[in-house]
């Protein structure tokens, strides 16, 4: 029995997820296939919708800091930073310089940790297992540093409203120095494994192309936007935490394919390392918390010895502080893109409305544009991985 050479068969609906090794969490993709070619892809999200925005309306501003860790949980310090900046802008709080530099160090370490996780898991999706072990080895060093400074690896809640929770110790600086001194050699290791690898190139080159116009029209931000040829970064365009004082480049791509997104993130590792070295060299002395009574939590050692600090701590913890009435939208360059907080305050200690703008949510909506009609099932895995989504942030 011979099979005629023209296309036979009908279209097939294939369900991918929500439990799937390569969907990076609980994402469901419904694929309409003609053979192996994807005619239509419908992403379905909401399987990790925890109601964080509603929960924030019932908790005080201090308590909400803890919830922000759980958004993009691969880079929790960045989320803390975005939230703290939004509330500080609303209240008009000036953060001391030492705290600003520490915040920059933490944000860039988060960026390194997030990108290392991404490279490891993306390579695992494509089929390469060695980068996973290598990247997690370095990521462990970063997480150890977070644990040294805040007691927690993944969800530190270290950057708080008004500054940072505790001052950095000499042991931390020593660990940071040894990390930044050797990190460049490790980046070369990852590149040696992947960048010129023929299998990697054929799996990621010209796959899931997003043109420059499409990227801007669809509102993408972060490495997805930069890989499509837009040299834009919120750290340079709307600087915060003193980023205007640091020298760093913004890597961008030309093709807008998966390979360019990979190259952009690799280069961002180098730039983040560069920023951390500059920050370490220019670390000023001084306080780490702004002295704004009844909004900024006082240092724990003062609380245990001074009655005034104890009263302030009690008032803030029991929610008896006042945030000025108003609204603010503040966003930063998270490792995945723009993480924005739109806070509407009615003058009480709880936000009236806390909106979390998530870059992964908007970036994921471009998946049909990248895939439909052009690529096959295996490329869907490469495309989803290259957008770098974290379902905690997509679903909130």
């Amino acid at each position, binding site marked *: 029995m011979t099979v005629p050479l023209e296309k036979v068969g009908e279209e097939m609906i294939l369900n991918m997820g929500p439990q799937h090794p390569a969907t990076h969490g609980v994402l469901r993709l419904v694929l309409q296939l003609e053979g192996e070619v994807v005619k239509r892809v419908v992403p379905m999200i909401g399987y*990790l919708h925890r109601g964080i925005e509603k929960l924030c309306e019932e908790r005080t501003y201090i308590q909400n800091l803890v919830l922000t860790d759980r958004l993009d949980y691969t880079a929790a310090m960045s989320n803390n930073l975005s939230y703290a900046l939004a509330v500080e802008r609303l209240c008009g709080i000036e953060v001391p310089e030492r705290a600003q530099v520490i915040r920059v160090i933490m944000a860039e370490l988060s960026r390194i940790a997030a990108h290392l996780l991404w490279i490891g898991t993306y390579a695992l999706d494509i089929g390469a297992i060695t980068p996973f072990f290598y990247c*997690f080895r370095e990521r462990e060093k970063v997480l150890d540093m977070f644990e040294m400074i805040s007691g927690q690896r993944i969800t530190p809640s270290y950057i708080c409203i008004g500054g940072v929770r505790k001052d950095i110790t000499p042991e931390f600086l020593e660990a940071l120095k040894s990390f930044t001194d050797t990190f460049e050699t490790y980046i070369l290791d990852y590149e040696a494994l992947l960048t010129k690898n023929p299998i990697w190139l054929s799996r990621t080159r010209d796959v899931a192309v997003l043109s420059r116009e499409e990227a801007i029209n669809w509102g993408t931000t972060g490495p997805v936007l930069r890989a499509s040829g837009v040299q834009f970064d919120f750290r340079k365009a709307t600087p915060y935490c003193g980023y205007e004082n640091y020298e760093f480049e913004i890597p961008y791509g030309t093709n807008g394919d998966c390979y360019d997104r990979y190259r952009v993130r690799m280069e961002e590792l180098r730039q983040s390392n560069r920023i951390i070295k500059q920050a370490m060299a220019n670390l000023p002395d001084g306080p780490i918390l702004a002295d704004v009574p009844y909004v900024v939590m006082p240092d724990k050692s003062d609380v245990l010895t001074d009655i005034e600090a104890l009263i302030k701590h009690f008032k803030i913890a029991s929610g008896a502080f006042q945030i000025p009435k108003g609204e603010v939208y503040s966003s930063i360059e998270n490792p995945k893109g723009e993480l924005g907080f739109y806070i509407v305050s009615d003058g009480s200690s709880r936000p009236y409305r806390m909106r979390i703008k998530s870059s992964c949510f908007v970036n994921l909506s471009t998946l049909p544009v990248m895939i439909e009609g052009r690529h096959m099932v295996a490329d869907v895995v490469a495309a989803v991985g290259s957008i770098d989504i974290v379902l905690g942030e997509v679903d909130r």
Partner: protein
Amino acid sequence: MGIESHLGIVTTCLDKVVNWARKNSPWPMTFGLACCALEMMVTVSARHDIARFGAEVYRGSPRQADLLIVPGTLTKKMLPMVLRLYEQMPEPKWVIAYGACACTGGVFRTYNVVQGIDQYIPVDVYMAGCPPKPESLLTAIMKLREKIDRESLRDRG
């Protein structure tokens, strides 16, 4: 009663052998919900090395897995999928509730979050933390091994 009392010594030895085999190779399913999944992934890496316990073989399909580690928040939208996955796993199977959200709902007492997976599926080991360190997952697996040791073929088949 019956055959068990005459062949008691045989079934006890058989129990020991079977339990030894089961506890030394609990194959988990790749099932990551939220932040705790990151710590679960890290246990596979060389530093914590879950392979010591025979559990590095993460199976994608529930039909081939023994152990369901639930790391992260279970939402009401995801609940039917978890139930279906649990039912598709063949016996013997065990469940570890990893992290505060899986144990009791965690920080999220909201409209879409299940307040503890034990409301719907039986849990063998609870591991609290937010997220618990990878060493905690290894502790949970060690506790599970102790539990498996106490099982007998009569209970599970």
